[in-house]
């Protein structure tokens, strides 16, 4: 023992193996075990979270149609000066591409894509494709023939659109989602007022979310305070009443709200029978209904974090403040409230983020005026099969959420974010 300590040689285990190696191996084994334990979750997250989001983000700028189905035109139009009509080569390449596209039946894809930029492009392309192959007399210009088929081919704007889309990615969907459009110079500009839609929808989404959050805070904070200061037996019972709707399906709850709020619903008929109103109130299928149902559904997300934070604040803080001479209301505001901010803000953030992505409640309980961004994501995915737009709107929602979180963690500090 004293020998091994006095000499500077590496320590060895009883079997002669250096102790350091042994330790390193043991540590590695432990790490491998830990990795093996989290591997299922990591793979699950990768497959269901990381990859779909990456695909979504890619899809929002993806622009494959022109490049894949009009390959020769794509190549030829690269050299165009973008002022006068393109050269004869471009027209010839176009006629060959259209012939191939017609035979492969891919013309529809390109036509649909180009029609997004200029209405009528679809019919123009299909009409021209039907005329393929062109039977040209010797020395006859393809360009003249195209213009003969449809004079729009003589308009450089249409060629601009093809040139613009002859890239495998495009900001088009993202621009459209923000009511922007690309000028010929390639810079974004705001679309004319009558064509704008999405800024309004985004604004409405944020506005509704803001108010739902405010209502949740106004209703949830006092309730959480009350629950936190009740004796445990009573507060547990009441907590179950908070959680019970929380455990019920959102669809069921929205349906129940429809029953309660509609024109001939429970509330209206009760108020009419009491003689308080003579006309039924419009409670469902408008903003009021959406607010009522969303606040009801999201309330627990404010109450629970607020409750858990309040539960951890001993009564003595308030007592101390009062014994020091402060009025109970002032003491509440100066001593109690600041300590609850982290939990309450966490709840509010949660509610706001969930609101931004809300779909089912406004869809069922709102008029078209209450539809939020998610509705249009669903609309583009299911109805018009325009995945580019759906992905772009989704990406913007994601960015909005992340920006919000960044602002929040800057203001409150993410490490103070406490969900209890």
């Amino acid at each position, binding site marked *: 023992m004293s020998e091994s300590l006095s000499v500077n040689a590496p320590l060895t285990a009883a079997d002669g193996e250096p102790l350091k190696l042994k330790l390193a191996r043991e540590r590695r084994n432990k790490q491998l075990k830990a990795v093996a334990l989290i591997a299922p979750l990591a793979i699950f997250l990768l497959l269901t979270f990381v990859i779909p989001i990456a695909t979504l983000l890619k899809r929002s700028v993806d622009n494959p149609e022109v490049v894949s189905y009009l390959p020769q035109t794509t190549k030829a139009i690269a050299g165009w000066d973008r002022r006068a009509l393109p050269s004869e080569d471009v027209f010839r390449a176009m006629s060959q591409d259209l012939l191939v596209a017609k035979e492969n039946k891919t013309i529809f894809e390109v036509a649909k894509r180009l029609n997004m930029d200029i209405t009528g492009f679809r019919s123009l392309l299909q009409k021209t494709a039907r005329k393929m192959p062109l039977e040209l007399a010797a020395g006859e210009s393809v360009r003249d023939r195209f213009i003969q088929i449809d004079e729009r081919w003589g308009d450089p704007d249409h060629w601009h659109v093809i040139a613009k889309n002859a890239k495998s990615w495009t900001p088009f969907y993202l621009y459209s989602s923000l009511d922007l459009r690309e000028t010929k110079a390639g810079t974004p500009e705001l679309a004319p007022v009558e064509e704008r839609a999405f800024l309004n929808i985004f604004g409405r989404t944020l506005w509704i979310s803001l108010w739902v959050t405010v209502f949740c805070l106004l209703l949830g904070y006092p309730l959480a305070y009350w629950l936190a200061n009740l004796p445990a037996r009573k507060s547990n019972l009441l907590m179950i009443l908070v959680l019970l709707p929380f455990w019920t399906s959102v669809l069921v709850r929205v349906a129940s709200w429809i029953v309660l709020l509609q024109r001939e619903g429970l509330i209206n008929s009760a108020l009419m029978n009491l003689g308080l109103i003579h006309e039924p109130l419009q409670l469902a299928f408008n903003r009021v209904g959406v607010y009522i149902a969303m606040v009801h559904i999201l309330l627990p997300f404010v109450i629970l974090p607020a409750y858990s934070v309040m539960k951890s604040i*001993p009564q*003595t*803080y308030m*007592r101390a*403040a*009062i014994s*020091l001479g*402060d009025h*109970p209301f002032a003491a509440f505001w100066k001593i109690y409230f600041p*300590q609850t901010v982290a939990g309450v803000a966490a709840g509010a953030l949660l509610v706001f983020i969930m609101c931004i992505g809300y779909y089912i409640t406004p869809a069922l309980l709102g008029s078209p005026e209450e539809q939020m961004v998610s509705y249009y994501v669903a609309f583009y995915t299911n109805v018009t099969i325009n995945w580019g737009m759906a992905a772009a709107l989704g990406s913007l929602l994601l960015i909005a959420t992340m920006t919000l979180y960044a602002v929040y963690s800057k203001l409150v500090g993410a490490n103070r974010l406490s969900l209890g």
Partner: protein
Amino acid sequence: MSEQQPASDVLVSFRGVQKSYDGESLIVKSLDLDIRRGEFLTMLGPSGSGKTTCLMMLAGFETPTHGEIRLGGQLLNNVPPHKRNIGMVFQNYALFPHMTVAENLAYPLTIRKMSKSDVAARVKKALDMVQLGNLANRYPGQMSGGQQQRVALARALVFEPQLVLMDEPLGALDKQLREHMQLEIKHIHDTLGITVVYVTHDQSEALTMSDRVAVFKDGIIQQIDAANVLYEKPVNSFVANFIGENNTLHGEVVAVEQGSAVVRLASGDTVRASAICVDRAGEPTSMSIRPERVRLNQFAESCENRLPARLAEFIYFGDHVRLRLDVAGQSGFMVKVPVGELDSRWQVGDTLNVGWMSQDIRALDSAVIAH
């Protein structure tokens, strides 16, 4: 006590105060208590004895069900707690975690609308008093328990209240720090001349610090006296057992004459004791004697009371040894012997003679339940 008008030096007076939470049982049964100006009064008692409730009624966080509480002659019953101008130190310190030490101390001063320079001067003075002048900008979470306790103390004193209440303020500290802080609080009390009402369940803390100690049990003050009187002259067996170490001998009163009682033990031996709670023959009694008043063998020869005892156990304490004895057939009788006086020939099972003066043993009530 309850009949006389409050004297001029009485700061706080409780008159016939009762408190019940459920309407069925009284947590404070009947409290008449005068606290003098500049006094350090400790309310001592086991948990549930009503001492903390009394403190909370004084602070204003509980309202008496019946009775009057006066502070400096002014009736407190309808004064809300924030207008009472009473400093308070809590067991868990209750320092505001989102404020620095200086902000914590400035809190009561800014409420009183003092000028900024006055606030800064007072905060500095208070922090210097508890020797924490260099930690003004720390947050409570960055300080040790002892430091937090000092800040809490400084905060309760900084607005110069006429009365400071302390609710088991040292309960969360370790023994060494607690003893240190006891002295520090005592010194601050002496220096500032403030009135302190201190609640604790630790009897040694109460004896060390207080001018007077009120011993609570079942919502009633059992005895209120200076520490030495409480220890030497307990008025009932609860106080005798609660304060310090105590030996008990059970027996029956044979005769009572001129404040002295003759008590016969179950073994047939008789003991002469001071009659405190007994006044007639035939009463059962528990007699109380402090371990250091018991003398052994040759030291016991001059005593009026002498009994044989069997040595049951030695317990070594370093500076002294405790002997556990069976006296007259009653077990658990402790005697403290300095190491120098210990006879090395003694062994477990030996019979020794124990003795004491009759004024040192007190014949008290027999019941474990106080009357």
